[in-house]
Structures are given as C-alpha cells and as structure tokens.
C-alpha cells in the first residue's frame, strides 16, 4: 500500500497532506491541527534538522526525529 513519502524529504512551500503519523504522537499532533488528512505546508528548515510547518494558521516546529515518521502526499 502506498503511504506517501516521509516529511523529511518533502519540499518546502508545497501543499502537503498528512497520510500517516505514529500512534504515540498522533493525538498531540491532532490537537495542533495536524491530523490525518489535514493539508499543510513546510515553511523552513530549522537548526537540528527539523521543519516549521504551517498548519491552519499555526506555525508548528517539528523535530528531526519525528520527520521520518510522518508520511505525506504532495498535492
């Protein structure tokens, strides 16, 4: 089953859709608007290899360890 690419390799400033998040942090991400099916984009890379995501008007910093566990589709 195709589950998209990981967020670490996703391009910046492109509309993305979250298709998979690890169970352990799914709830926390959901509370911040980043739930399965949500559309968002990446604004910038951060020190330490993370990204800043633009989600429904919020800027969410995501650590590098999480990026490889999040699967997205480019829309």
């Amino acid at each position, binding site marked *: 089953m195709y589950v998209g690419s990981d967020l670490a390799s996703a391009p910046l400033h492109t509309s993305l859709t979250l298709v998979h998040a690890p169970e*352990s*942090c799914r*709830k*926390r*991400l*959901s*509370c*911040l*608007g980043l*739930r399965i099916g949500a559309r968002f984009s990446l*604004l*910038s*890379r*951060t*020190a*330490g*290899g*993370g990204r*800043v995501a*633009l*989600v*429904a*008007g*919020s*800027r*969410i*910093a*995501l*650590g*590098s*360890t*999480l990026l490889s*566990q999040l699967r997205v589709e480019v829309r």
Partner: protein
Amino acid sequence: MAVTEQPDRALKLPLLVGTPSVKACCHTGGGIGACPEAPVVALVGAPNTGKSTLFNALTGARVTMGNWPGTTVEVSHGIWKTTRDAASCTCEECTCDPNEQRRDITLIDLPGAYSIDPHSPDEALTRELLVGVPEDERPDLCVVACDASRLANSLYLVAQLRELGLPMMVALTMLDVAAKSGITVDLDALSEALGCPVVGIDPRRRTGLEALAAGVREHTGIATAPRPVLETTDALELDDDRFAWISDAVRAGASAPAEQPRTFSDKVDRWVTAPVLGPVIFLAVMWLVFQITTAVASPLQGFLDGLFSGPVTNGATWLLGQLGLGGTWVEGLVVSGLIAGVGMLLTFVPLMTLMFILLAVLEDSGYLARAAVVTDRLMRSIGLPGRAFLPLIVGFGCNVPAISATRILPSSRQRILTALLVPFTSCTARLTVFVMLGSVFFGPYAGTAVFAMYVISIYLVVLAGFVLRRTLWRTMGAEPLIIDLPAYQVPTLRLTASVTWVRLQGFLRTAAGIIVATVCAVWLLQSIPTTPGHAFGDVPVAESAYGAAAQAITPVFAPAGFAKWETTSALVVGFVAKEAVISSWAQTYAVDQPADGTPGTLGERVRTDFENSSGGHPIPAALAFMVFLLAYTPCVATLAAQWREIGAKWTLFGVGMQLVTAWVLAVAVFQIGRLFL
C-alpha cells in the same frame, strides 16, 4: 522507584482558595483568598493563548503561585475584583457599602493544556480539577482562552469541555494578530456555533476585560447543555467528530484568506531558527543573559553587601552598645545572625530581579519557543528538551536564578531533573576559591586547573543527567519535538513588571526563612563553647560547637586527602555560601584574607595543611578538594530556590546526591592522583 508524577489523588478545590474558619466579608482583609462565597472561576486554555497574561491582568499582584499539593504542577490563584450589578454579598458579617458594586472572584490559572486527555501531569491536573472532583467542588465557571489567529487549534479543548456541559465561556485573544493575517472573527456567530458565550479581549493591553467580567457574572454557575457526541468508543471516530464540529464552528465564526500571507514572525524565523545562524543568535542571546545576570548585577550585589557589612552592621553595633548589649551574645545574634542573613538574602534581589525580567521578556516576546527548537538536538542527547539549555547556561553565572529559570520547562519532570543538574554547573562564587587554590598549588598551571574544573562541571551535568535519565527518570519518554510557535510580540512593561514582581515575591517568601535560619544556625554553633573558660558568644572557632562538628566529620575526608578540621570547616561554611570559604580560612588561620587573589600567608597555611593531611600528596588532595567543592551543595540560597521550585523532597534528594557524588569523585581523584603526583 521512578518519577511519574501522575496526580492520581482526589484534589480538592477548597485547598486552593484557603477557606477561612470564620466567614469574613468579601470586602475586608487583604489576603489572597477571597471570601468563601466568592465564585471560583478556572482559567484554562492551550499554551501560548495569552491565558497567564489574562490571569495577571485580572488579578494584578493579588496572586499566590505554588505547586499543587502532591505534584510539581504549578498553579496560580488570586482574587479578581470585579464590579457587580447588585449588592448581593451573602457573607454572615457583611460590612459592604450597599452602594458599592463590587464582587470578588477566586481565579485559578490552570496549567496550559491542549486537551483534557491526561497525557502529561499538567493535563491530568486540569482534567482532575474540571471533571475528576465531585460536582460541588468543580469551578463555578471555566473561561477558556483561545487564540483567534489559530482558532481551529484552540478549539479542541472547547469541544471536549462542551461535551461535558460545564458552565463555560470563551475568551478570544490575539484578535490583533489575527487581523494582521487577514482573519476576521464574528463573535456572535462563533458564540452561536460553539454554544457558549464568546468575548473578544486583549489582556496585554487590558481591553475587553469589562465585557469579560460582565460575561462571567452572567454565566457563573449556569451549565450549558452538553454537545451531543457520537455514540462510539472508537477514539479516532470521536476525534473526527470533534474536528468536524470545530471546522463548522470556524467556518461559521471566522473568515480567513485562502492563502496565508507571510507574517513578520515567519520572516524573523527564517533567521532565528535557521540551521547555522539560529544557534549563533541563540548563543548571542545566552551570552547577553549571562552578562546581565553577572556583570550588571554584580555591582549592585557588592553595594548591598557593603551596605549590610558596613553601615547597617556598624549602626546596629552602635545601637546595641548604647543599650548596654555591646559585646554580648545578643550583639552576635543580631549582627552575625540576623543582619548577615537578611543581608545575604537581599544581595540576591538584584540578581533575581534581573533574571526574572529576562525570563519574562524572553517568554513574552516568543523567543523562548525558538530557543527550544534551536537547542533541541543538543539537549536531547542528555534526555532534556532544548529549553533546559537556558537554566544550565545561567547556572555557570549563579545557580540561584538558574534554578528559578527551570520554570520555563513545560513538564514538571523535566523541571525537577534540570533543577537537580543545575548545582553541578560551576558558578562564579566557586571560581574565586578555584583561582585561589589554583595559584597556591598549581603556580603557572593555575589557569589550566581552573579550566579543568569547568570541563569536569560539564561532564558532571552530562553524567548525572545520563544516570538519572536511565534510573529515576526512565519512564520519561523521549517525546519528539512538537512546538506551537507563537507570533513574536513586543514585551509589555506592565506584564514584565507584574510577572517579575510575583516571581520575586515568591522567591523571597521561600528563601528568607531558609537563608536567615541557616546563617543564624551557623552563628549559634560558633557561639556555643565546648571547652571550659569561654562564655557563650565569645569563643574561638576551634573550641566552639561548630569547630567540634567540623572535627567530628573530618575523618570522613581522610580517603580524599584533606582530613583537617580547618579544611572541613571551610566546607561547612561553603554550604552556606561559597564566597565565604576563603574568609572562613582567613578567620580560622587568623590571617588576612588575600585581597588580590594571590595566595599570601593564607595560601602557605592552606598548603601546609594539605601537605600534612595528604601524606605528602598536596596536589591530588587540592584537586580532590576542588572537585568536592564543585560537586557538593552550592549554597543555602540555591537550596531555598530548589525548595521553592521542586519541593522539599527533591531538594533533600539533590543534597544527598551531590554529597555522595562529591565524596566519591574526591576520593577517586585523590587515590588515583597520589599514584602519580
């Protein structure tokens, strides 16, 4: 045993408001607790929604802050003095002016929480207070602070609370930030969609607070009909239902441009969180914090120190002499106990004030969240989040404000762990002793010896963090970094001053008793003679209870090579303040304290003692002493700060851990060193 700190006990709201035994009128007394009949309003909301700013704006300085009993989750509570529509005070002995239209409300600032799912101690406490306690102990109203610029993300908590049918209303903040992003909010339409009142406020500029007060008066105690929920036990389906409801509410109450414009914060973040420049900017900010907390505060500390050891002490001595108490134990108690203790406490005021101002500015501006992002990977290597970098860096200046700085950490377990590691950072007070011993024992290599202490200090922090992380803190999961970055804001003077004042009050309240009591205890021990022929308060140190105690513990340090009572008594004084180690030696050896850091006669006496106690290996013994000085309890003021931030249990645990670590390391350094030196 592992540190989990899930507040699993029944938490009673009356504990918070401090119910007095006799019912007093709402309008009398200046204490923190409002009258028993005062309604209890809980302020809840996600982090960075302006909740605490709102709390400060509503309560002013009428606030107490403290950890919730049995937990280390900090909860603030205070009185919100509002006007009321009718004089309806129900106090038994009412002294209200019937024309006065006031009503006090007990306001509780609950920890920031995105939901009431108990994923963290903060969320667990919020859940317990809102839904875990019996109905008659629940708050009379929940005010949920929501960020208008990130409306959808703020409403998850509202959705959950609406399902419970609690009396609630929404305080919408950041409307100005939302407007800059092209977002407009129709408060009436949003209120209708959410099924509860919505008021727009700006707590930073204190606008909309009257409307909020009116809404609170009107809706306190009035439950809203629970929002119907999907009949399912599937958590994902429930979440989908909530997000659909949130989506409908946002669509009905707000409109936003299809394309999100780049904001000022986005532009700044391109530099501040950038891979190379971000850490450079962070280090520059830390350098500034370090400079201000040491260089700027230092002259002020020196001034206060001089004031107490000079004019205040001289004045008190003169006054007591006029009263016929000169040279008596009363003079000793007043001058060497009370005045020295209060003086020591007050010398920390400039330092703590500056630290609290800097913390407030960093928090209020929004930079602290970025600092956490930039340092996350580095700090994660010892199991701490990026924000822990700040208190650890500040610790190299002074451990006392560094302990207070641990409150920037979002999780109570992280706060405790960091507060236990801070004392291993080598503060400037220890530096003075290192420099003196370095010049006595290491001559041209003094600088290298002092530098080695800093390297050992860093290793100690890493090692202690590593060990604690894999033992007592093994259940603390390595959660990935997920931070909601707030928009940058210009810190407001009023908010900064208010937060600083509240925190400084809290520090002084806790530290005053501990510091003054400890200094008085040291004076008392030094005043009690243990040999005949001396009066109380007029006894040489060697023949006092203090000297006897130092002699009693001296054999413990034989394996470390410095088993001389003159040396161990300096360590006992160093427990009170490291600055006092050299002056203690000067007093014990009855020689002048070196004024310029050179060893002088004092250095020769110290070296002779180390040579005698180490069996001809003074250099490893001196190194062992320096390592012990580095690793054991920094000072009583640090203990007072720890007591306030992490409670008595963990403070005492820290003292034990530091003493054991210091002794083991000192013995290891001496025993290995004597083989070579």
